[in-house]
């Protein structure tokens, strides 16, 4: 077996440019998912029944959906039927945001549930207003509990972004496919891409552990906990 290392070296600039797209689309999609996830978690606790039902349906629909299915449906099905043709990059970011908002909503919900009931009562007894109860007492504790899972989902989102290659988002996987096909050296190219993903995942995991130790949280699993 001969491993064409020169090919990897000559394609490295292209791969690194594509890695920037991977990181960009993951970051934007994940940030949007964080915002929507908080709204959904709040919706689940709302006094309004329609808000609770809507959050429940949203979360469970997108938790059941696989990224590939959703991205193909949006990009090929919905776009064609409605005539709204969005760029692949936008559809890709949107899909990552939709799926992860559901996962993160569950993480936030579990975080809120884990805060002791006595904390609410104590905050109220101190005479804090409902918003201050949440902001000064509940949120700081819930976010500490949720942080490790949020980090794991960030790693999962990064790995998921490889699927966006199917709608031609010029990210790492798509670029790797293109070079593999034109050079007839798939093995070298996929190994090179695997190494880049491996490095990215480990950097995120290391940063996460750093933040966790700064906050005095017990360090968690390094890599994704769900199969992606």
């Amino acid at each position, binding site marked *: *077996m001969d491993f064409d290392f020169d090919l990897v070296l000559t394609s490295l600039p292209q791969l690194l440019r594509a890695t920037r797209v991977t990181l960009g689309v993951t970051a934007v999609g994940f940030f949007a998912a964080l915002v929507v996830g908080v709204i959904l978690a709040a919706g689940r606790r709302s006094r309004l029944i329609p808000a609770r039902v809507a959050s429940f349906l949203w979360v469970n629909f997108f938790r059941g959906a696989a990224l590939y*299915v959703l991205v193909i449906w949006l990009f090929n*099905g919905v776009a064609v*039927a409605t*005539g709204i043709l969005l760029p692949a990059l936008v559809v890709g970011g949107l899909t990552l945001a939709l799926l992860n908002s559901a996962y993160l909503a569950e993480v936030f919900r579990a975080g809120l549930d884990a805060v002791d009931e006595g904390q609410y009562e104590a905050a109220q007894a101190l005479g804090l207003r409902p918003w201050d109860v949440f902001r000064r007492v509940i949120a700081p504790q819930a976010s500490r509990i949720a942080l490790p899972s949020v980090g794991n989902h960030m790693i999962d989102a990064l790995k998921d972004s490889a*699927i966006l290659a199917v709608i031609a988002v010029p990210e790492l*996987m798509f670029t790797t496919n293109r070079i593999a096909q034109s050079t007839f*050296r798939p093995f070298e190219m996929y190994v090179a891409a695997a190494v880049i993903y491996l490095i990215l995942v480990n950097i995120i995991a290391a940063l996460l552990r750093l933040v966790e130790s700064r906050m005095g949280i017990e360090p968690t699993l390094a890599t994704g906990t769900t*199969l992606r």
Partner: protein
Amino acid sequence: MIDYRLDWGLVTENLDRLMAGLGLLVVIAAFAYAVAMTLGLAMTLLRASRLPILRIPVAVVVEVLRSIPLFLFLFLVYYGAPQVSALVLTPFVAAVAALGLTGAAYASEIYRGALKGVDAGQWEAADAIGLSPFGRMRYVVLPQAFRIAIPPALNLLVALLKGATFVSVIGVADMFYVSRDISLQYFAPFELYTFSGMTIIAVTLSLAGAVAMLERRLDRTG
């Protein structure tokens, strides 16, 4: 802009092909699951070995498989393997292999977590009543570890089914391959992808729901 008229008749006309494609997805996930659970157990045992030469390579493989996207690994297996070996895999075998190997890495973590979840006092108690190492495993540790492992192990099956949804990218004639095929012929991507998407979501959600129910039951009787 073109006027897109919905034609759901295409879905009903091709229902048998679509359902056969769904069946293929389930079969791939099931085979991959069998590989994952068996190989994962072997990996766990090797990682518990006292010999570093057995322990370290397996730990590295598990870490790598859990860190790279399954989607990428599928391409590496299907297109990469024939380049560096005499192994030419059919899309079906490549899909089962990629899903099974990645699944094994996750399964190995599940087994490991379950063994760790059994209280240390149970191991000591088993020793104290004079059980052999095999008896300790067979009668004390494994029955308890098994119970801990059930919910995550079933969730792995759901994850494998979700992972199987993209095997059409290497040419497996699953439900999404059939959907694309019909869409290209009759230009009906919305109807076909909506149907196959909703179908797979319904399957994964009912499976996940059943797992959650079982989990609650185990918690109650636990």
